[in-house]
């Protein structure tokens, strides 16, 4: 893929991934075929900051986990009053990383 397009993608979507993964994503994107660009450019990623706000406000109900696609963890959180409140607090610190990991899983389908 064209280096200019890849850099544009990284500039716009860099915040959705872990910083140490960005170089790998860039290298992989440079290797893949041009035809994947259209699908890749319209892919929606979850914003870690938005999920963090949801986690702060609706963490005990597991909405944050449901939003990133972790349905099982969401149900687990919902039926245990947010993991007795402890899991809710732990997730305030872990949810951004979890969101970025989900984004990586999503982009790996193209790479």
């Amino acid at each position: 893929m064209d280096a200019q397009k890849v850099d544009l993608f990284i500039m716009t979507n860099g915040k959705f991934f872990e910083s140490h993964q960005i170089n790998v994503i860039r290298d992989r994107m440079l290797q893949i075929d041009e035809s994947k660009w259209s699908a890749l450019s319209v892919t929606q990623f979850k914003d870690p900051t938005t999920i963090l706000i949801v986690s702060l406000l609706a963490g005990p109900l597991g909405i944050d986990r449901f939003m990133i696609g972790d349905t099982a963890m969401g149900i687990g959180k919902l039926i245990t009053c947010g993991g007795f409140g402890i899991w809710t607090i732990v997730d305030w610190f872990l949810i951004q990383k979890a969101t970025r990991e989900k984004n990586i899983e999503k982009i790996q389908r193209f790479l």
Partner: protein
Amino acid sequence: MSLNRNRLYIRVIIASVVGYVWILLQVTKNNFSNNPFRVCFLKQITNIPCPSCGTTRSVTSIIQGHFLDALYSNPLGYLIFIVLLISPFWILKDLFKKTNTFLQFYIKILTTIKKPKIAFVLIVLVILNWIWNINKGL
């Protein structure tokens, strides 16, 4: 699915152990009304019960044989009771026989739940249960 078998089994076993310890503590203590410590984060902050408030009372009622009380406390208690009763032993069986039947069942249930129609019904049920919880004043 990114979740691998051992990771799932460890998570479920840890959750089950925590659940058993918690239920055991509550059954032996048996004094909810005198207990000032509330585990529900939402209730502590807003004084509104969450959809799963009353589940511990429900499970302890089931253990003591008061099935109607359990249903009144929170119907989710039945779900938790069944999960706690079955999942650890199923996982242990899987680990000994080196099969992955629990993982397959888990994936099947998850894909079923994620279907929009079923998800909608479940969400409505949870919201109704929540409204009921608030009306009961748990």
